């Protein structure tokens, strides 16, 4: 019961931040030099269209009225119209969201499932070769541009070896599974559509892996540092004094404590993941929000870009909130 009260409290506290976020996106969209409406509608807009848009966005009115109109439009889900697709930006975003969600979630899962054990091993075998290799990898991973890694993987595994596909979510001759969640892997599992499932799996492997490399490096570093700190604590010595095997001391006593700080950076990592998705999707022609944003940039499609920025930020903010709540729940020392 108290947990719900905490969640509600946090949500309320987030509101001013969200408002601030809209202020910034609004300011940015008004920054462009020249007539924003003309730019937004593109060079082939007619007079009437321009007039209509002017009225809707209230460009002749003072700035704060414009902002309020902006907020009103937002609340109705109106994020503007994309120059390129000629559709409402919101519809575009809804279409492309599942692909990005699938990619980022897969990447995060890979990063966590591999990153944490790697960090543990590095901490436990400190200064011996597994530690050395892990730290090297962590350093390299953090230094590699994610788009460059994607290109390299594409070069090796697609162009040179031909083991994995390099474009899109599915082979062109296959049609996507019945849409329940929009996530091909999940949907095809639910409908027992094995051909599609394995094909989708092959397609997601390269982009998810290249996206996860950087994050995995950071997570393993963080896990290692956290484990090392926890291992020096008194309660670890006391646990050993009880006669517990080293394995139990590490996995039950040390790990449970050291994972707590790691959870807190998962939220930040997701932000990195989102940003990385923008780059990765364009390399692998993954039809998600990221590629949409990059196309929008090429066309200077301001509404689309701002819409994307707003939505991506919203997702990021809520994800951090979820992570905060999880953190509060798993650490018994924190009262809520």
């Amino acid at each position: 019961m108290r947990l719900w009260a905490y969640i509600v409290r946090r949500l309320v506290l987030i509101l001013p931040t969200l408002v601030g976020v809209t202020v910034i996106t609004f300011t940015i969209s008004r920054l462009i030099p020249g007539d924003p409406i003309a730019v937004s509608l593109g060079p082939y807009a007619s007079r009437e269209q321009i007039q209509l848009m002017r009225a809707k966005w209230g460009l002749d009115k003072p700035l704060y009225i414009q902002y309020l109109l902006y907020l009103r439009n937002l609340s109705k889900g109106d994020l503007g119209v994309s120059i390129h697709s000629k559709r409402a930006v919101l519809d575009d975003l809804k279409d492309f969201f599942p692909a990005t969600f699938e990619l980022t979630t897969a990447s995060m899962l890979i990063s966590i499932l591999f990153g944490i054990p790697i960090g543990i091993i590095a901490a436990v075998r400190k200064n011996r070769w597994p530690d050395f290799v892990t730290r090297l990898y962590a350093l390299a991973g953090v230094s590699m541009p994610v788009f460059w890694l994607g290109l390299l993987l594409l070069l090796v595994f697609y162009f040179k070896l031909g083991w994995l596909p390099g474009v899109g979510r599915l082979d062109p001759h296959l049609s996507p599974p019945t849409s329940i969640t929009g996530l091909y892997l999940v949907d095809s599992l639910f409908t027992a559509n094995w051909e599609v499932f394995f094909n989708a799996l092959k397609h997601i492997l390269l982009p998810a892996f290249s996206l996860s490399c950087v994050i995995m490096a950071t997570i393993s570093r963080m896990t290692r540092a956290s484990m090392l700190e926890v291992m020096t604590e008194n309660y670890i010595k006391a646990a050993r004094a009880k006669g517990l095997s080293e394995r139990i001391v590490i996995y039950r006593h040390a790990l449970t404590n050291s994972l707590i700080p790691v959870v807190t950076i998962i939220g930040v990592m997701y932000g990195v993941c989102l940003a990385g998705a923008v780059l990765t999707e364009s390399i692998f022609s993954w039809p998600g929000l990221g590629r949409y944003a990059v196309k929008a940039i090429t066309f200077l499609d301001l509404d689309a870009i701002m819409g994307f920025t707003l939505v991506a930020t919203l997702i990021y903010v809520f994800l951090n909130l979820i992570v905060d709540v999880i953190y509060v729940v798993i650490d018994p020392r924190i009262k809520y």
Partner: protein
Amino acid sequence: MNERRVILKIQGDLKTYFFTFDGVAKAVDGVNFEIAEGETFGLVGETGCGKSVTALSVLRLVDPPGRIVSGEILFEGKDLLRMKEREMQKVRGDKIGMIFQDPMSSLNPVMTVGFQLKESIRLHKGLREKKAERLAIEMLEQVRIPDPSKVMKRFPHELSGGMQQRVMIGIALCCHPKLIIADEPTTALDVTIQAQILRLIRDLKHDFGSSMLMITHNLGLVSKYCDRVGVMYAGSLVEVCDVSEVFSEPSHPYTKGLIEAIPRVNAERETLPVIAGRIPDIINPPPGCKFHPRCKEAGPRCSEEKPRLLEAKPGHWVACVHAGLH
């Protein structure tokens, strides 16, 4: 003098060294003593004299860069230092139980008290959940914690310092160990709680028929709760004797200095006599007797030969060339 069974015998000059950047710190530099069945042996000394490291060495819990370099630790006849780690794990928590100094940091903050207690019980007794739960509650009752079934579900930070230490004692003693190692068990607690905890430890030790190695810097505690005393200085034992004799006939100059420095209610003196100087660097200790730079009775031999612990009187051992030995 009763010929009681010897539970713990440290012999062969126990040496635990720390190999650091600045040099080798000889934290325990040749220590030998024994503890008989049912006896409470107090290991006394200033901070940094090596008493805690000695205790940790018994359980082989010394972390790198520390290492036990030489010696034998015979527990019920078997040398702990030659055991395989698996065997040692069976001894820890079961045959030898350790009570740590700061209970708050010695209990895992994310696990309930009950879980940590049951963990020991299940590990060494192989019991199932229900039985372990019952035994755990009984143990909490034995350490005089009120409302034990509620406390089982609490986390360490929700308890007071005294309660935490009781839990710690419960965990250390739940398998009725033959030897209890208590490392400054009350130093981190309020003065008012200290006496309660010490009495509790003494009572339980008596009930279980255990021996105890008590580490402390407080001579007052030693006088009340210990049978025999070992005085440590800079990694070596300088005097070992019965507790009464350490107060009535201290033989080593360091011990004498310690006893004299105890404030007495009925004293006529106005200034408290202190031992001049500071404790030596354990990386580069003074040659010969480590205490000689501060010793009032130091002579020419003291800077040349390192005095060995010899039996000056039956049951009274001193490491000093001036202690009237034959």
